[in-house]
């Protein structure tokens, strides 16, 4: 299984998580979507040298994971798996920004290191919140929320169909390439010519499938409009969830709690 295969297994797993049951799962997806969006905006709105003020924000993903009964280890692993890109771009910062920002005993900490750390913190926060959101909501509910928030229907329907057929088609691709390698007999690389044959055949099959799906839709009265069932409702719990967290986020955004806490503690130590 290559990286994509693993990613797909993840979609399946996250679907299973989303099928779970907790008060968080039952919340209207719009409330969760909006709250997570506010969370991300608050986190990324800090200046690039901010680290300590970002820390309280981890309360939100921690809350989602704990209250949604999500496997924390799995999410952490997933974040680590996708982190190389953030590391790659951030890692130049220490080299490029060498101005000493503060002195920790004999150690001079440059701005580059601080901003690097900040990038990593942002990355961990935003990614964990997004993953947790999906794991307690599921793509279908997210799509329903998007539709009801005014996202154009052709796009939402496209997302739903894409999600529906990812497994069918990647399964086909996997079987094709396995069939190829079984008849190759030695670990030979896929040549460009064979590659084109594989992809071309896959594409033809895909288009045939599209035609069959279209016919199946016609047979059940499809007239160009997909009608989506509405399940969710905005109630008191949704409003409380979104408002409550918004208050937290704005407090975290404008009051540096860790700094105050740290000063109080270091003050006591003195």
């Amino acid at each position: 299984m290559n990286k994509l295969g693993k990613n797909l297994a993840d979609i399946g797993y996250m679907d299973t998580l989303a099928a779970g049951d907790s008060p968080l799962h039952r919340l209207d997806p719009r409330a969760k979507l909006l709250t997570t969006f506010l969370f991300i905006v608050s986190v990324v709105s800090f200046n690039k040298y901010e680290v300590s003020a970002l820390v309280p924000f981890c309360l939100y993903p921690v809350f989602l994971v704990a209250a949604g009964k999500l496997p924390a280890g799995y999410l952490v692993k997933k974040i680590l798996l996708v982190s190389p890109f953030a590391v790659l771009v951030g890692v130049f910062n220490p080299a490029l920004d060498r101005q000493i920002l503060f002195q920790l005993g004999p150690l001079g900490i440059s701005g580059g290191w601080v901003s690097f750390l900040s990038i990593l913190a942002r990355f961990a926060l935003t990614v964990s919140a997004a993953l947790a959101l999906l794991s307690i909501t599921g793509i279908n509910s997210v799509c329903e929320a998007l539709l009801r928030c005014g996202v154009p229907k052709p796009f939402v329907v496209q997302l739903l169909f894409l999600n529906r057929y990812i497994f069918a088609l990647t399964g086909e691709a996997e079987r094709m390439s396995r069939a190829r390698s079984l008849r190759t007999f030695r670990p030979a690389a896929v040549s460009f010519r064979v590659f084109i044959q594989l992809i071309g055949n896959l594409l033809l099959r895909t288009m045939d499938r599209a035609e069959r799906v279209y016919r199946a839709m016609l047979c059940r009265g499809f007239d160009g409009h997909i009608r989506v069932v509405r399940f969710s409702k905005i109630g008191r719990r949704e409003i409380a969830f979104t408002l409550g967290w918004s208050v937290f986020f704005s407090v975290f955004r404008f009051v540096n709690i860790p700094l105050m806490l740290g000063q109080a503690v270091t003050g006591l130590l003195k």
Partner: protein
Amino acid sequence: MHMADALISPAVGGTMWVVSGGLIAYSAKKVREEADDRKIPLMGVLGAFIFAAQMINFTIPATGSSGHLGGGMILAILLGPYSAFLVMASVLTVQALFFADGGLLALGCNIFNLGFFTCFVAYPLIYKKIIGRGLDKKRLIIAATIAGVIGLELGAFGVALETVSSGISELPFKTFVLLMIPIHLAIGLVEGLVTSGVVSFVITARPEIVTAAGEKTPPGVGVKKTALGIAAAAVLAGAALSWFASAHPDGLEWAMLKTSGREELESSGRLHGLLASLQEKTAFLPDYGFRKAAPAGEVKSEPAAGEKAAWPAIDAGASVSGLVGGLLTLLLAALIGLGLKRRQTAA
């Protein structure tokens, strides 16, 4: 070349969300106007096809590295620009949501970089122009390759522009562009060759598919005009916002000051003063840090220093306290999480 949330500022991310959102709404409207019912399932499974095709890699001779299909150009050829753009946007959305490739805030950037340039610039202005009316294979290869390269290069340029105007990564624009261009030249070449290879395969096997798709594409002028219009609007909006972002490094804070006026400023000044006095009492670090910390508290008396203080807390006392407090907060959050978890399992 997916952008990540961590690398962009809300101003840039927000702008690109608006731009890409507008493009999605516009494309959705166009697709609806085309009223081709058959396209609804076709777009869906072609989106899944892009994922599936990416599971198969081929080995690039003499390099040991492998290439695969990116997909934007082939979608545009098979579906026309509007539908292709929607499919590309959906693929990127799924990647952002499930694979954390890119991120939610960066999604607007990614849709623009990988979707807009290919579907609305490279496809109508380069591929269609070279291909002309007929569909012979030599032209197809040339058209798909050049369009593939240009689409990806523009996308790479977009990545560089967005990253640098966000100001979070320290890489200077020129270095970034110089780093991105050659890499994406190679990626674009591969993409173009794969695209033309697959399209000529399909033409040989089932010619009606590609010709039908070509006919369905609305006349070039409409696409070009709208593409140019949107491109111009995007560049303008981007330029304005990146100027705004760089002039006011912390857009949100700036807006807060501007809207809530003095009171907020004073109270935060007082808070800073309080903190500063707290620091005075806790002087266990070299006083070097506290000298610097002091101006941060005196926003009113020293406007010039205040300007700088709007940037980060560049003071040692604050940093150490931040470190200690940060760790404590982390611990607290973990405890809250554990508590919640225990309650959940008990319930």
